């Protein structure tokens, strides 16, 4: 059977499964809709969190990015997993104890201030929105390449599915669909990785194959030594050595960690478990489920890079396998025969290099490059869609709860009935899906880049405000509000300055202390903390009842009755 038929079968089956789950888990109350009634078992929540977290970027782009960055790609690996340690130790148990629906709920109540709540709503919506656009784009690419429908149709199919289960089931529908999506995506990621590891090193565990010797057919020698050697020969950077400055890698890693711990769609997953103990447990499960993919990704990156160089370098263009021409039509790979010898020169020097390879190809085309069976190739498409849709659904829910719950119910229309609130929540998802779909079909050039900056913004706004709210009882509303505004504006300003206003300066000489816009969120976090402490030191302490809330959330036990 052809790849396309296999892809249709997998996509059809998985989508059917998602819809089935949605129908089975309809939401009846706002509590169902926002936090799945608070009754999700920790194992299920761990899987849902992992699927929620691992987006199109983790599934499609990350291994490819590492393929091209070599050791510098480390900041994605450590940044996107190390943040879970912060989440598990500093946020999840306390926020669960607090026991509300959203992140702005916590900020608003803890800092007894509508202004704080509104700033949190603004940050939550802007961070989630930038993020969701990238997911829709990812879904579009997969549809167009594997099912050969155009991107518009692809995005509309994706939107329709997400819309169906998000509107019907809210958090409850999303949670159980995410459990299924985790299974699909991890299976789809691991199967090709295991196949390739066996093929290249004879070892079925990619994490170990990564450091093993290549088989005879691949020329023997340790994989990483071989890759270093080939890279050097062709004028690329040595794979296992770093190119970026140490302080930049340090700051980017920290920004991704703080950002991970401050992303509202991840935090709210911990509101869905029954109690504090389960919140800790589900953070543990989530990290294990994420680590499976994240420890495989660097192995996939090294395998794919070796395979790509072996296959294309100095090969006849006309003798290229079928996948090459297929990906050429999507413009993700392009060949320009500069010296006219009919062979592909894939080298580090931009003057003589004849092949441009998009990083996304490394995961999507990897099974084809390694000549794996058609069903494995098709599986990757279903996995990538699961990754994109599960994250999109989680983000859309944040947008919808922010509008219906934080903006309407808690800020401007406190008297609306639960039924009304639920209706507004569903309407908000509907509008958010439409806007996200529109942006997915007409992607502004900067969307993919902006996704990375969402982390910096989350790091500089939410993370310090929440941590201070739990760990520093005397932190007051003036301090928190000033800190969030300062952190957010500084980070956003720095990014906008280098990315739009003065891109000519966007290099290590122009940057402040050699920190790239990707890593500036760490600096924003520090500014947020400093401003918050300074302002809090000469403004009145928070009222007694707020201090009592802080005492309460520090102890596990029954959720607080507000």
């Amino acid at each position: 059977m052809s790849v396309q038929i296999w892809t249709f079968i997998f996509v059809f089956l998985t989508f059917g499964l998602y819809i089935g789950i949605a129908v089975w888990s309809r939401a009846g109350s706002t509590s169902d809709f926002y936090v799945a009634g608070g009754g999700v078992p920790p194992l299920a929540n761990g899987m849902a969190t992992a699927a929620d977290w691992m987006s199109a970027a983790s599934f499609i782009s990350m291994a490819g990015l590492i393929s091209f960055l070599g050791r510098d790609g480390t900041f994605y690996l450590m940044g996107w997993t190390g943040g879970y340690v912060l989440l598990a130790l500093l946020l999840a148990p306390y926020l669960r104890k607090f026991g509300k629906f959203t992140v702005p709920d916590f900020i608003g109540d803890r800092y007894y201030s509508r202004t704080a709540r509104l700033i949190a709503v603004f940050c939550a919506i802007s961070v989630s929105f930038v993020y969701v656009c990238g997911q829709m784009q990812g879904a579009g690419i997969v549809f167009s390449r594997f099912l050969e429908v155009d991107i518009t149709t692809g995005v509309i199919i994706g939107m329709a599915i997400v819309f169906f289960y998000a509107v019907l089931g809210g958090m409850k529908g999303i949670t159980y669909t995410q459990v299924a999506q985790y299974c699909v995506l991890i299976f789809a990621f691991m199967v090709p990785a295991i196949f390739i590891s066996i093929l290249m090193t004879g070892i079925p565990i990619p994490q170990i194959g990564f450091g093993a010797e290549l088989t005879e057919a691949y020329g023997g020698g340790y994989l990483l030594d071989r890759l270093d050697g080939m890279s050097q020969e062709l004028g690329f950077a040595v794979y296992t050595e770093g190119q970026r400055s140490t302080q930049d890698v340090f700051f980017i890693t920290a920004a991704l960690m703080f950002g991970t711990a401050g992303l509202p769609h991840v935090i709210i997953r911990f509101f869905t478990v029954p109690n504090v103990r389960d919140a800790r447990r589900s953070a543990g499960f989530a990290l294990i489920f994420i680590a499976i993919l994240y420890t495989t990704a660097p192995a996939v990156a090294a395998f794919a890079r070796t395979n790509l160089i072996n296959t294309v370098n100095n090969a006849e263009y006309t003798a290229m396998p079928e996948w090459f021409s297929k990906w050429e039509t999507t413009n993700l790979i392009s060949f320009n025969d500069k010296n006219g010898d009919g062979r592909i020169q894939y080298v580090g020097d931009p003057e003589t290099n004849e092949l441009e390879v998009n990083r996304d190809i490394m995961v999507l085309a990897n099974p084809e490059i390694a000549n794996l069976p058609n069903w494995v190739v098709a599986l990757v498409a279903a996995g990538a869609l699961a990754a994109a849709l599960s994250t999109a659904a989680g983000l859309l829910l944040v947008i919808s709860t922010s509008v219906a719950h934080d903006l309407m119910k808690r800020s401007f229309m406190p008297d609306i009935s639960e039924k009304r609130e639920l209706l507004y929540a569903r309407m908000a998802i509907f509008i958010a899906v439409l806007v996200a779909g529109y942006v997915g079909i007409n992607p502004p050039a900067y969307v993919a880049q902006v996704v990375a900056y969402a982390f910096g913004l989350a790091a500089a706004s939410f993370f310090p405000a929440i941590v201070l709210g739990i760990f520093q009882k005397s932190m007051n509303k003036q301090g928190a509000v000033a800190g969030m505004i300062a952190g957010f504006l500084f980070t956003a300003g720095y990014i906008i300055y280098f990315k739009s206003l003065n891109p000519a300066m966007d290099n290590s000489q122009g940057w402040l202390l050699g920190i790239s816009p990707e890593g500036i969120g760490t600096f924003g976090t520090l500014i947020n903390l400093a401003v918050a402490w300074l302002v809090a030191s000469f403004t009145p302490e928070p009222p007694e009842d707020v201090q009592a809330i802080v005492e309460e959330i520090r102890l596990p036990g029954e959720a607080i009755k507000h």
Partner: protein
Amino acid sequence: MSDTNALEYWKSNIRIVLSLLGVWFFISFGCGILLVDTLDEIRIGGFKLGFWIAQQGAIFVFVILVYVYIYLMDKLDDAYNLNRDEVKTAEPGEEAQ
């Protein structure tokens, strides 16, 4: 729970969190970034040690840290008699509607 008990519980909690975050910082920022080139001198099989910690080892340590945290906090909760009966408040029928 009395106020002094609550304070002691919180102090033990902070101690656990801070020591685990110390390990977290040492392995990721210390070994994976600041000392990576030095550690690369050591080789284990096909891996340079620094490179391995940065791309895989740190992630394994993160998982272990979270599980050590779960274990220590459970023990602490038990020592202060917190959280035991609360498990019953979950309604298992809820999520299956």
